[in-house]
Each structure stands twice: as structure tokens, then as C-alpha cells.
């Protein structure tokens, strides 16, 4: 039967109005937080589109003000209106640093998610669809990647190529693809057995065609779900590395490195660690809630993840 478009009936959803509102809020609030954070990160300054003088950050994040060390936030007693969230040990504006930190933290996590998802998807599909020796080999490598201590690898890379933005990206990517590969392999195995794949083989479709026209489109949903859930994980991982000094190093601000920076002043200036910490918490929660919501919509079978 042809389904007619444009006709929308009111369907009884079986849910109370209040329940529906709460469910929708679990989409709207996390999505709003993430979008806000991304806008903040993008528009910290507009130097990258040729407008270096405008931006959301009120000050240069690395400019020191020796006379304004460890000032509390402006809304507290003793705070200055120039420094909305106060200043750190070197008198740098914390608000600007948190804004610039968003740029580093978010971009690291998004780049890592993109790289790991790409590698994991290709290897997972190859492994699941080809089977045999390719599968055995890829899965053993995956096992190694999953069991290798990430911190040790980060330290090795830190020693080998020195600290920096791309070292963090590399450290998180080198092992991160394995989870994707496992999951995608399972899905590919399931789809490989389906009738429409047999049909494509009968027609003479090449392995590549089957993998990208038949298997990939049918795992995209699961992939999106996992990628969203990874936003929080990667933010946390980057923060942890930076906190331990294996990640982004001074003077560049990332949320993790600001938290680390404030650790020594915790008794006198709690705000240095607290505000980037709150940002980490918010984004991680937003990522998880959004991931849950998308999962429920797209692929309820993945509940256990």
C-alpha cells in the first residue's frame, strides 16, 4: 500500500504530557549545551576568519597581569569586573582561558572521534564481512588495542614525540578505534548473512560494493549512537591526560590543563579548578544524554552500551 504523505492524525502516544516534556527536555537541554559550547569554542576569537579584534573571549588567555593574581570571580567579594571568573596564579583571565580551553578540548575530542570511527568502521566491516584470516588478524590486533594500557601509551608518545596537541590526538586515536571495530564487526556479521547481501553477490557485486552500499548504510545508526556517546568519554580522556601533564601543556589552555593548574591553589582559589571542571561535567553529561536519546530513537537494540 502506498502511504500517503501529509496526513497526520493525532495519535495517542500512551504517555502523560509531563512524561513527554521530560523526554523532550533530555534532548533539548543537552543539545543546547553542546551547541553553546561549540559556538563558544568557534567564536572565542574570530582571527580564523580575518577578524582578530572581535571574539567572545574578553582577553588574551595567555596575557598575565602580575598585579591581579588569584582574584576571585567578579560576583564575589574582592573580585574585579574585568575578570568575570577571576584570575589564576599568573593573573590570567580565567573566563578567557575557559573559553579558549573549550576550543582545544572539544576539537581534540571531535577529531579523535572522527579518526577512530573511520578506522574502526573500515576495519570492522572488513573483518565482519570478509571473515577468515583477515577477521582473525584484525580481531587479534583489536584485542591488543583494547588491553593495552592507554596511560602507558600516552607516556611513551609523550617521551617519543614530545607533548602537544597532536600527541594527545594520536594517543587517544591509536587505541580508540578498537571499540568501534568490535561493534561494527558484530553488526557486519549479522548483515552479511542477510538475504539482500546474498542477492547482491548473485548479481556479481564486488566486495567493495557490498561493503559500502549494503553493509555500511545498515550500520550507520549504531555508528552515530556510539560516536555521540564518545563525546563525553573523549573530553574526559583529554582532560585526564592534560591533568596528568601528558596532554596539552602550559601555556595553552585546555579544560584539563586549567584544572591541573588550579590544583596547587585549591585552598586559596577554588575557582580556577572549579569552572573548567564544571564545563567538563556539563559537556560529558550532555554528550551522554544526547547519545542516549539518539540511541533510543535510532537503535534501541544497543541499550546495553
Amino acid at each position, binding site marked *: 500500500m*502506498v*502511504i500517503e504523505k501529509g496526513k497526520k492524525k493525532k495519535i495517542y502516544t500512551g504517555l502523560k504530557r509531563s512524561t513527554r516534556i521530560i523526554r523532550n527536555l533530555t534532548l533539548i537541554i543537552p543539545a543546547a549545551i553542546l551547541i553553546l559550547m561549540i559556538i563558544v569554542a568557534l567564536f572565542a576569537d574570530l582571527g580564523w576568519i580575518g577578524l582578530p579584534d572581535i571574539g567572545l573571549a574578553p582577553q588574551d588567555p595567555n596575557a598575565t597581569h602580575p598585579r591581579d593574581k588569584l582574584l576571585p570571580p567578579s560576583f564575589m567579594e574582592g573580585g574585579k569586573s574585568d575578570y568575570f571568573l577571576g584570575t589564576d596564579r599568573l593573573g590570567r583571565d580565567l573566563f578567557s582561558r575557559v573559553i579558549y580551553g573549550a576550543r582545544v578540548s572539544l576539537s581534540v575530542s571531535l577529531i579523535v572521534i572522527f579518526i577512530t570511527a573511520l578506522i574502526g568502521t573500515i576495519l570492522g566491516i572488513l573483518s565482519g564481512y570478509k571473515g577468515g584470516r583477515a577477521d582473525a588478524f584484525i580481531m587479534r590486533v583489536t584485542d591488543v588495542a583494547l588491553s593495552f594500557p592507554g596511560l602507558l601509551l600516552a607516556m611513551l608518545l609523550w617521551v617519543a614525540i614530545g607533548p602537544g596537541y597532536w600527541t594527545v590526538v594520536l594517543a587517544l586515536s591509536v587505541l580508540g578505534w578498537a571499540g568501534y571495530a568490535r561493534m561494527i564487526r558484530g553488526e557486519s556479521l549479522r548483515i552479511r548473512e542477510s538475504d539482500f547481501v*546474498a*542477492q*547482491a553477490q*548473485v548479481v*556479481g557485486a564486488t566486495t567493495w560494493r557490498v561493503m559500502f*552500499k549494503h553493509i555500511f548504510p*545498515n550500520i550507520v545508526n549504531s555508528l552515530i549512537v556510539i560516536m555521540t556517546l564518545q563525546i563525553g568519554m573523549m573530553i574526559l580522556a583529554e582532560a585526564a591526560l592534560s591533568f596528568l601533564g601528558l596532554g596539552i601543556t602550559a601555556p595553552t589552555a585546555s579544560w584539563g590543563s586549567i584544572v591541573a593548574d588550579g590544583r596547587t591553589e585549591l585552598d586559596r582559589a577554588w575557582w580556577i579548578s572549579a569552572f573548567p571542571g564544571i564545563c567538563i561535567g556539563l559537556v560529558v553529561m550532555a554528550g551522554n544524554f544526547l547519545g542516549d536519546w539518539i540511541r533510543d530513537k535510532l537503535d534501541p537494540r544497543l541499550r546495553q552500551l
Partner: protein
Amino acid sequence: MADVLLEVRNIVKHYPVTRGLLQRTVGWVRAVDGVSFTVEDGKTLSLVGESGAGKTTIAKQILLLEKLTSGNIIFQGKDIYKYSAAELKRDYRPKVQTVQQNPWSSMNPRMRVRDVVGEPIFVNAKLAKKEVYENVGKLLNQVGIDPEGMNRYPHEFSGGQRQRIAVARAMALHPELLILDEPVSALDVSIRAQIMNLLKDLQTEFNLSYIVIAHNLATVRYMSHSVAIMYLGQLVEYGESEALFNNPLHPYTKALISASQLTLPEDAKDSSKQIILSGEMPSPLNPPAGCRFHTRCTEVMDICSKEIPEMKTIGTQQVKCHHYT
């Protein structure tokens, strides 16, 4: 006699059974064990048997989805294992297509109908998208689907319509042999006749040969020119359709036909005419010695459990049973 399009000669397919940590092979499932038949130009051969008799396994071998353990499949006079990869792609695959049983799982849910039906053409011919879709329109027309529907997704169609679309896809490369794996068994009874008539019409129009896999004898009788009855990986009876239905020789064939006939209340009193098989089909892992059917046969003799019967030709039929030796 018409020309032979496909000949299957003594094909065998065994699947290994592995067990334990080291995946040792502990036995073989004898899914197909020495089957021979021929398919003539423009004619229909039906493979009939219970689930597990090996019908679908034979289909997989002919479609080259799996590799034979032994035996030959000869298409237009040439063994298909002697084709080179390029020849297979050019001379064999396009000519042997299939319609699967389940129209809900045989199409990628993420593809539009135009790409589902067009896929064989995309894969095998270098045509522009527009030309392919023109062809798709013609194909859909041929099977009685409005070509406008090609922009929709498969789930927007009913089972019968989807099976028509599946037929259109199978026709896309102008095949010579279609393997119809239970083409109507997933459909409502009311739609079955339509699809069967469509298939018969296409056969006359394009001189197609069919291998129909079925367990519904009414379907088989309606569609086929010759019939092969399978039991536990082997043929037990093989012959022209009318002769076989009018004069079944093998006890298993008799039982199948008896089971398929509708019983009206007045006939039910005369239960002596009905043959009801007891028990399950034995495991193909360890088939019975002698005649494979002897464990369930109603006319079993002493010799049946000891000696393997030979295929005997009686009239136009071939039968594998000790009663005819």
C-alpha cells in the same frame, strides 16, 4: 526434447561440524549427497522435499554462493568451475538469477526501489544513472508495478508487490535461468496465484527456465514440467510432472502427495487411503544405512536397511527404491 540449459551431475555438498576449543572437525553434515538432474530450455524443474532435504543448498551451489564438495554443474555445455572469473561475470552470473523466499529480507531497507532493481544493471553495465532508471521503469512495468513507485523504499510496498519487485530485479539482466526459492510461500494465499501467473507469463515471453524450490505440491504441479523429489540430501524420484503426480512410485512421493490433498469430512472416514509418516527426518550428520528413507517408510522391507537402492528408470520416471528392482 528441448536443449539442456543446465545439468547438475552427481553434486555433493558436505558441511564440516566442528567442536571443542581447537575446532576439530568431528563430522560432516551431508546436506546434498549425489544429486543429478537437468533443466531444459524454457522449462521448469521443481525441487520438492521437507525442510532440511537440501533444496536450498542446491540453489546456493548453482548460484555460486558456496563451493561444491564434489560433482559438476554444467551450464550451456560448460562446467561452471572451469569458467574464469571474467567469464563468470560475463557469461554465467547475469544469466542465472534468483528470487528469494522472503520479500521482506531480500531487499536492502536503505535502498530505493530504483536502486534495488537497478543494482544488477549498475554492477554489470556501464550505463548512466538515467538510462538505468529508464530500464528499471520498463522492468517494473513488466511485473505490474507502477514505475512511479521506483522512488520509494521497499517497506512502502506490500508483500505481493515486493515479490513482484524481486522478480523485476531478477529479470534485469535478461537471465536464462531463474532459481525461485519458495517464491510464493511467504505470501498470502490470495496473492500466490497472481505471482505464479506472472512467473508463467514471463517464462513464455522470454523462454526462461526455472528451478522452483517448494514444499507446496499445488504450486509445484501448477508451475513445473518436471519434478525432483528430495529426501535427506538425495533424489528419491525424478520425472515429468504429470506422470509423477498421476503415478507416484516412491513411497515418500506417495506420502507427500497424500499429505497435500485436502481431506473432506467424508473422506476422513476412509483413513486407510491416507499415508501419514511418523517421526522426524533423520539427521544428515549420520544418515541411516541402506535406503535413507527406510526408518519412516510405510512399505519397508528387510533389504531396505541393508543395501542402498540404485536409481531405476521406469517409463519417464526415475526412482530410487528396492520395490522396483
